[in-house]
Structures are given as C-alpha cells and as structure tokens.
C-alpha cells in the first residue's frame, strides 16, 4: 500500500462528506444528492463519481470487484482495481458472489446480488430529464412537481416514428413511485434487476457532482405505456459461443478471419462460472 496517501486515497473529511451524501441518497431513493466532487488522478468523465463512492465506502475487510461493460479484464477495470488496491490493500476478485463492493460501468452482473453487497455505478449523465430540458433549475422543479410529461412524450414520439420504444440504454425508470431516475448507461436488459433487489445500488456522477441510490427492496419501474409494456432486449435463437447461455446479455462480435457473427456473454465472470472455469 502507498504510505504517502491516506487509506483509500481521499482524506477522511472528504470520505465522510461523500458518505453523508450517500446516506441522504439512500433515505430519498432516486433523488440526486449534490456533493463536492473531489479531484482524482484521472479525468472527470472517466468514472470519478463511482471511484469516489468506492473510496469513501471501502474498508480493510472489503472484497472489491471492478467491471467495465461486463468485463473484469478491460483496461479501465484493471486500472481502477489496481489504483484502489494500491491505496487500500483490499483483496480484489472477479467473482460477483464473493465481492462485497462492486464498481461497474454499463452493466449489472448476471447473478442476483445479495443483501450484503453494494453495487456502485459510474454515471455520465445523472439527470434523466436532460434530453428534454437543458436547464438544471427547471429539471429540479420538474422533479419536485413530478412533471415527467416531456419524457413520456419522447417515448411516444419513438413509437410514432419507429413503432417501438427505441431507447436501448439509460432507459428511465420511476423509483419508489416518486423520482424518475436515469439508471446510468446500463442496457435496458438490466433495468429489471434494479426492482426490489436485495443489494444496495449507488450511482455516482463525478463530473455532474451527483449521487443517487436505489436502496434494497425498492420498487423500480421502467416507464411503459398502459398498452405497450416495457420490453428488455431479447436474444431469441442466440446463445453464448463459450458457455451456451441463452438468457444473458450477449455481446455481438465478428470473427476477423471468417467474418462470422458470434455472440458471447457480456458478463465475463458469469460466463466463466457457467463453464466451470476458475473465476
């Protein structure tokens, strides 16, 4: 561990402030709590919100897992893991069941998480209303008054143009019947995993200086019209080329030599587990 830095890089005062903001976020599910986003040795927009949450929550006994687009081995995941490992000495893992703290970008693990686990999501744009309203003071009022008609209009416009809702990620959802939330750029395939989950979901946006949360067992409902139900992605007739799973989120790839289209589990540790490989 680097002895030149405080445990988990940030000073204790900063960590305490971020934990306070996190507690407030847990107390008001889906509400975006402003916080004083700290400088980190990586640029804003590269996961600083998630890292600050992880650094402020992590303790010596935690087991950390970091994933990026479902993969434990991507450059971003490996470097974040290395950085946090260097300034905490905590054990890192690729096993989703074993980890107590999981930092992730773009995916929620395939296995259902348990009540002892915290999933920290990196969020680029926390405000679900940003696509319809650029002014922060207006979106705050819209949340306060539950004025979500413009988002519903976007969904309806999509139906008129394409006969279906074409949003594939950042699919807005209602949390605990009050706040509309952007679940970060996870595919809408993962939205149902937020509903009444056993684990705690924390969302950190470092550049936008916001933290929000979905506490365990909270109702999270993806927006859907009465006559057109919410529909996550389907992969009918397709399965993972490695483990054969047909019920997971699949990445599409091409064989460079043959040009053949292949599918593979996006969650690499789950895929390994199914194959019986060492995770």
């Amino acid at each position, binding site marked *: 561990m680097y002895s030149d830095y405080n445990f988990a890089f940030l000073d204790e005062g900063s960590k305490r402030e971020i934990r306070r903001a996190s507690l407030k976020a847990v107390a008001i599910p889906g509400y975006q709590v402003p916080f004083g986003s700290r400088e980190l040795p990586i640029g804003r927009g590269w996961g600083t919100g998630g890292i600050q949450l992880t650094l402020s929550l992590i303790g010596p006994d935690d087991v950390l897992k970091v994933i990026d687009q479902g993969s434990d081995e991507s450059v971003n995941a490996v470097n974040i893991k290395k950085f946090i490992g260097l300034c905490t000495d905590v054990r890192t893992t690729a096993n989703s069941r074993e980890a107590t703290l999981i930092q992730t970008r773009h995916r929620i693990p395939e296995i259902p998480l348990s009540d002892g686990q915290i999933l920290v999501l990196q969020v680029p744009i926390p405000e679900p209303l940003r696509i319809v309203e650029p002014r922060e003071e207006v979106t705050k009022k819209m949340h306060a*008054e539950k004025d979500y*008609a413009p988002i519903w*209009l976007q969904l*309806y416009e999509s139906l*008129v143009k394409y006969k279906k809702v074409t949003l594939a990620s950042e699919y807005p959802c209602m949390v605990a019947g009050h706040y509309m939330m952007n679940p970060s750029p996870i595919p809408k395939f993962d939205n149902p995993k937020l509903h009444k989950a056993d684990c705690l979901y924390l969302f950190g946006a470092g550049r936008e200086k916001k933290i929000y949360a979905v506490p365990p067992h909270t109702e999270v409902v993806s927006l859907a019209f009465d*006559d057109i139900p919410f529909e996550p992605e389907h992969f009918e007739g397709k399965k993972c080329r490695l483990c054969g799973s047909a019920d997971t989120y699949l990445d599409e790839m091409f064989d460079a030599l043959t040009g053949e289209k292949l599918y593979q589990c996006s969650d690499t540790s789950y895929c390994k587990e199914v194959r019986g490989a060492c995770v």
Partner: protein
Amino acid sequence: MCLNETPVLQVRNFTLRYGSGCPACGERLEKNRCALCGSVWAANDLSLDVYPGEVLGIVGESGSGKTTLMRSLYFDFTPTFGLALLRDYQEGRKNIWEASAADRRMIKNRIMGMVYQNPILGLRMNHSTASNIAEKLIAAGSRNAGQMTERARGLLESVEIMTSRMGEAPRNFSGGMQQRVQISKALANNPALLLLDEVTTGLDLSVQARVLDLIRKIKAEYGISILLVSHDLAVVRMLADRTIVMLDGKIAESGLTDQILEDPQHAYTQQLVHSLI
C-alpha cells in the same frame, strides 16, 4: 350563449406594466406610456367576462394589449395585478394567476386551449404531428399510446389534415396546416375555453376561409367558449357574439358585435369601422 349563466372566465382589473414604474405611474399617460418614467402599460385595468358557448372577439390596433391579455391568461406573461377566475378551476373562487405551477399546468392542459399567432410558439416543430397532440393528452395524465393515437387521428380528421401525415413534423406543413394542427392540439382535452390569438393573420384568403369555417364548426360541434383576438373586423363580424374594442391597453368600447360594427360610439371604433375596405 346565456348571460344569466356563470361566466367561464372572469377577468377583473387586469394590468400589465413593462418597466419599473414610478410613484405616480399611470397617472400621466401618453397613449399607454408613463410620461414620468417611460413604463409601458400594455394592459390597463381590463375587465371582461366570457360566457358558456360564447365567442368574445377582441379587436384593436397593434400594441393595444390584445395578445398581452391572451398570453397572460395562458401564463406566458405575469400580470402586474389583476384577477382571473375560471369556472372550472376551484369553482371560480381562486385567482388563476396565483395558482401553483402544477395547477397552472392543469389549467393549460385541461381547462384552456391556446392557438398562437405564430405556430412556433404553440407547436414542437421537430416532433411528429401526432406527438404534438399527444403532448396535451400525456400532460393530462393519459398513458395509453393506442388511445392517444386514435384521439390524434380523430382530431386531425376534424381539422381536415390527412391522417397519413400524422407522423410528419409540422415544420413540413404550410402555415394554414400548422394553424389547424395548433387548433387540434388545443382541442385535445375538450377545454372549456379556447384562446385564439390572430389565427388567420398571415394566411392567404382561401386558407383564412377554411380556418374560419373550422372555428365555426368547432363552435357549433363542441359548444365551447372562445376568446378570439383579431385586428381583422371581418373575422370578428363572422365569428364573435360580443366584441371588445381595445385602444392603448384599455377597453374603448364593448357590446354585441352587430351593435359595435353598425353603430360604433367611440371615435376610435368609428374610425376602425369606417376604415374597412
């Protein structure tokens, strides 16, 4: 129209002043401008009633305060003072200009419909025509996409716009079509009061005639009250039951339309009527 019934809309002492004002503001006005501080009294102590099923016309020259009144009623402008009561809001006991933001949205989406002179103000030019109408329905709480599409189709048919074009954005439409889309949008939730602000201005004569026919049809079919602003006396003669003549932010004369046009009392009204080509 029955003048014994409770008015759909009552406006009392509506005043809107642009400028900071002064202690003696409004006492010495040159036209509608304070001679002391230069503040403009766009509307000055206006009072009017709109009765069920009635078309109330408002005429006057540019700058007389017609649009100021309409857009204040639709919450685009904030009055300096005044009272506006809607029969369908809190049973006419609460001033709509003191309503909460949520209540204002409810009034705009359920009780009133507005057709602006400039369609850019009333339509989302980059959204489909169906979405423009659905916007009102969504704001009023509808979450059934099929029903909203059917409602949009019905409304577009009633304003004679081909339903095959409901997926197109209004920016691709002609001025007359945009006005008719605005009218269908304003009618989406069967409002009790329709505000029409210079709906035929800038349209060629044949399109004007179609829009006016449409308004007559709406009045006959829906029986809703209409507040109609125009600087065109022919439009007012054709549609309005009663007429108010405005000058420099004040009401110069009011009465039955025929009476105003056939026997004008105020010098400005006489000038206006006699200037008809």
